[in-house]
């Protein structure tokens, strides 16, 4: 076939799960007594790859785990760690729960908001940063705390936040 790929097809291939990821998920499913237990771990793997869970991958995952896409959407939308839309290269998640707010989490969030020029829940125009407020990260002894992608940053001050942001530029 010599026709040019339509934009739709380009998109689909963009979110096509690589063979190695599919193999990884299939192997994972064998580690549990029932393969459905691999669903949440598989969603983590997909998010590690794309930064979020694109709808196209849900269809592919449903095939691998022999389940329905709707069931996967039910799970995907229940758990807050899964991103349902694209996030920036750096996803900043600041804890707003009690121990962190006692030690100035609000100030940290406002500072980040001002520095990045976005409100919590938004992405910067260049898609480098997403700012989110989250509930307790289980790091209350080193509050205030934020996560950037998979990494924790603890005992935050505005100066420390500035240095961290600079190191990411």
């Amino acid at each position, binding site marked *: 076939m010599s026709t040019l790929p339509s934009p739709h097809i380009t998109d689909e291939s963009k979110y096509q799960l690589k063979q190695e990821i599919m193999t990884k998920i299939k192997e994972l499913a064998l580690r549990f007594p*029932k393969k459905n237990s691999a669903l*949440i771990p598989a969603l983590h793997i997909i998010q590690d790859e794309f930064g979020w869970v694109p709808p196209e991958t849900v269809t592919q995952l449903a095939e691998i785990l022999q389940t329905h896409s709707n069931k996967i959407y039910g799970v995907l939308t229940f758990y807050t760690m*899964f991103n349902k839309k694209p996030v920036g290269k750096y996803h900043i998640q600041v804890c707003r729960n009690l121990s962190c707010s006692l030690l100035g989490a609000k100030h940290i969030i406002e500072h980040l908001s001002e520095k990045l020029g976005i409100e919590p829940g938004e992405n910067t125009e260049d898609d480098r940063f997403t700012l989110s407020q989250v509930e*307790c990260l289980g790091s209350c*002894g080193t*509050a205030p705390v934020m996560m950037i992608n998979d990494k924790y940053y603890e005992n935050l001050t505005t100066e420390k936040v500035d240095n961290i942001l600079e190191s990411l530029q």
Partner: protein
Amino acid sequence: MIEEKKALTRHIDVADMEQVKNYISDGGYEGLKNAFEKTPAEIVAEVKKSFLRGRGGAGFPTGFKWGFLPKEKTKPFYLICNGDEGEPGTFKDREIMEHDPLLLIEGMTIAGYALRADMGFIYIRGEFKWIAEILERAIENARKANLLGKNIMGKGFDYDIQVMRGAGAYICGEETALIESVEGKRGQPRLKPPFPAVVGLYDCPTIVNNVETLACITFILQHDAETFKLMGAFQSAGTKLYGISGHVNKPGVYEYPLGTNLKDLIFYAAGGIKDGKKLKAVIPGGLSATILNADEINLDMDFDSCVKANTMLGSGGIIVMDEDTSIPEVALTAINFYIHESCGQCTPCREGLAKIQQILKNLINGKGKTGDVDLILKLTKSINGSTLCPLGEAGAAAIEAMINKFREEFELLIK
């Protein structure tokens, strides 16, 4: 003065404890060796004798929970370690998982043998990705040393552990929601009974224990029930990892015998209130525990003393607030959390908490009306006892106590 007791945290500052040889060089796997000298029933009896109570929050006697498993084994049995650690103010289990993973893995292997379990799971909160990786490496190391897998230590016991990360849902700390999550479903609590010991993971008998509880199992089998009971208070045996956060000079996790006085924990272990300020309030056992005012902190931090004081030991997560703290703001922070984490199944929790949030917001924004404070109290009462799991009740009770103890501050917001 009070004295730290390092029963579970002695390796916290030692590097590379995920290596079996390092762990064994300091008494590691003596507990499992001792366990294999006993029958499973004898281990359950020893744990009952130790009077170990669950460290996740409820304080239920572990040996008795284990005793609820069916005598006849017609289906696989499972053990799940609850490492979800989501209760605000709680950051203790990560100390064990991150710095002494084999202490937990040994405890889970002993428990697995005692419970005749076919497989163990560690359910860890999704954000602790690097800790999940530490656990996976430690499990692999244990497998290589024949301490997990087929025919462990040549004793004919087959058992392995899988690590599974959650994905940011507090409710998955509730044991039936956790089981749903391991099954790859939305984390919505189940109707009980049947309890997990009868119908649990994949409809098979399942025991769910907290990380710290399972670490205590290692201690009890390395030593014995009597040694364990030498630490702690009446019917609250052993030590506790107290996590102290908020307005203190030295926040952190401290291991002391159960029953250690709250005042000493705040002023001695955690170095007192930050910036020389006065203490205003303390939440002693994670956000869901009833708030205490500064006059109520002469309290022994064990299960029963806390209940007598109308609060709870919970997870031992102590949140300290200084004189400048606004309790209505604390209440709003708390209610925001419970609403965010409500699974949405039960109307009183889903809708009731949202109503309380709206009234609190109005109060704080200067739009409060006479009678609002009583209306909140009425709403909290309507949530109590009308939900499948304790989440809604916990949120309601936390707010109710804040109002009852600091009512004036709420009333002052009404102009």
